[in-house]
């Protein structure tokens, strides 16, 4: 049934692991109750999945050096940018007053110290509060 040589078999196994990880990422996005849990699922599992898929394709095109180099570039780029975008989205989501945490969350260290409407911290002194309350230029 499996009429594949060793190289194709290795490539297919790697592709399958990657695809399963990406399906797990999608399942987590579908089932998790809260923005931060969803972000935890998608960022980690999809980075792992895309890494395995890129490795599988690189095994298939191993004789073609420019293609393998481009695939490595894709993998490194995603490895570098996924944490950055997840960090920025998590920060923006926490600042957004509409974001609800899951009812079972029991560690939220900024809960009593951060005003989500005014974007101020309780530990700020007068000068820092004046800077935080300055009117920002309107976005058009």
């Amino acid at each position, binding site marked *: 049934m499996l009429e594949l040589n060793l190289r194709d078999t290795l490539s297919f196994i790697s592709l399958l692991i990657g695809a399963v990880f990406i399906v797990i990422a999608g399942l987590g996005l579908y089932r998790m109750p809260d923005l931060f849990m969803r972000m935890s699922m998608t960022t980690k599992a999809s980075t792992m999945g*895309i890494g395995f898929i890129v490795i599988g394709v690189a095994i298939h*095109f191993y004789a073609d050096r420019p293609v393998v180099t481009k695939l490595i570039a*894709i993998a490194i780029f995603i490895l570098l*940018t996924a944490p950055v975008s997840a960090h*920025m*989205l998590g920060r923006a*989501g926490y600042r*957004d007053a509409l974001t609800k945490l899951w009812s079972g969350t029991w560690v939220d260290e900024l809960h009593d110290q951060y005003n989500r409407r005014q974007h101020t911290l309780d530990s700020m002194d007068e000068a820092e509060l004046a800077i935080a309350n300055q009117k920002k230029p309107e976005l058009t």
Partner: protein
Amino acid sequence: MTLAAWVLYVILPLLSLALLFASYRVLKGPTIADRVVAVDLITTIGIAIIVCFAIVSKHTLFIDVAMVVALTGFLGTIAFAHYIEQQKG
């Protein structure tokens, strides 16, 4: 069956399933941040599909396309995050 057929009948349907889950979250997602997370995952799945389709079609040109999608998808997510942070709470 060759590797191209296995990719066509096993890997691409799995990725399409993940795409379906992410699309549900784009339509349903309670806040904008949820939708942006889902769009980010859709971009990643798109890269995976393009790269796998390079095996099916035997055209290595698709790898370049995937590289460009990876570059622009990151910028889109960063722009959305910045916009969510700046909006009136």
